[in-house]
């Protein structure tokens, strides 16, 4: 019998504290993971990139082996959440597992949306195990000159 280095719970606590640390070091950028959100039932956190393009932000999440129907994207109160579940590699209990490096179970990542972002404009697609979310930047109000009313007398 192989003894794991740490019980599963300790690994979870470790990841949670790393997420908290990241949040506290970087403060609150436009996009930030909510460290507190990861104390939920999530078993793993997919690796993500957040890229700022000229007109949009893009989130790329590596979620290989996840059925598209098991991925959920939600916007609520200025927060965008990518969540879902990766099913176990073996359906059969009699299977012998020689190596298990891939994470499975529920996953979750949460981001703060830039101020003024319209949830209706957010687009997502899934290809080769990568979820790409496109968030158009809110268009700045057109610059204009404001006339000054002058009262005399």
């Amino acid at each position, binding site marked *: 019998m192989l003894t794991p280095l740490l019980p599963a719970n300790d690994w979870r606590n470790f990841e949670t504290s790393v997420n908290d640390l990241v949040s506290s070091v970087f403060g609150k950028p436009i996009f930030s993971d909510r460290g507190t959100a990861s104390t939920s039932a999530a078993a793993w956190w997919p690796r993500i990139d*957040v890229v700022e393009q000229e007109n949009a932000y893009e989130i*790329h999440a590596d979620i290989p*082996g996840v059925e598209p129907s098991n991925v959920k994207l939600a916007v609520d109160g200025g927060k965008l959440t990518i969540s879902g579940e990766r099913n176990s590699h073996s359906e*059969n209990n009699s299977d*012998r597992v*020689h*190596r298990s490096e891939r*994470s499975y179970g529920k996953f979750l990542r949460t981001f703060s949306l830039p101020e003024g972002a319209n949830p209706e404009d957010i687009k997502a697609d899934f290809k*080769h*195990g990568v979820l790409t979310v496109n968030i158009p930047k809110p268009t700045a109000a057109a610059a204009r000159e404001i006339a000054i009313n002058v009262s005399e007398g």
Partner: protein
Amino acid sequence: MNANCTPTQVRRYATRPHNQPAPATRTYGPATDIVENDNNVTLILDLPGIAPADISIKMVEGVLTVKARRERSKDGENKPRFVRHERIFGDFERTFRLPRTVDATGIKARFKHGSLHITAPKTDQAKARTIEIAGE
């Protein structure tokens, strides 16, 4: 981890742990699961964001090698600014020494949603079977 599985058996399958670079070059080993059932040994490798055409699988003298390259897409003239940068790009390579109990000619691979599934059938001699006791 299965209780029947000894560390020696595990080491027999994989020659390099995942996420450790190969010597001299910056190469990553994709995370891998290895599962054995009555008929097959199945390897599942996570290779997200890679087109199947960019993955090569070779079997030479009982050693299975999977190689892949993942390139960052360069879209647009403007250099994108990374707000967060966690994903791994570059060369991926991993080798596995398969047991003699699998039939090298029957190995099949399929790629689905960023995971590569390689199935190696066991030889008939290696399959578990029940032996009936002849009556008197």
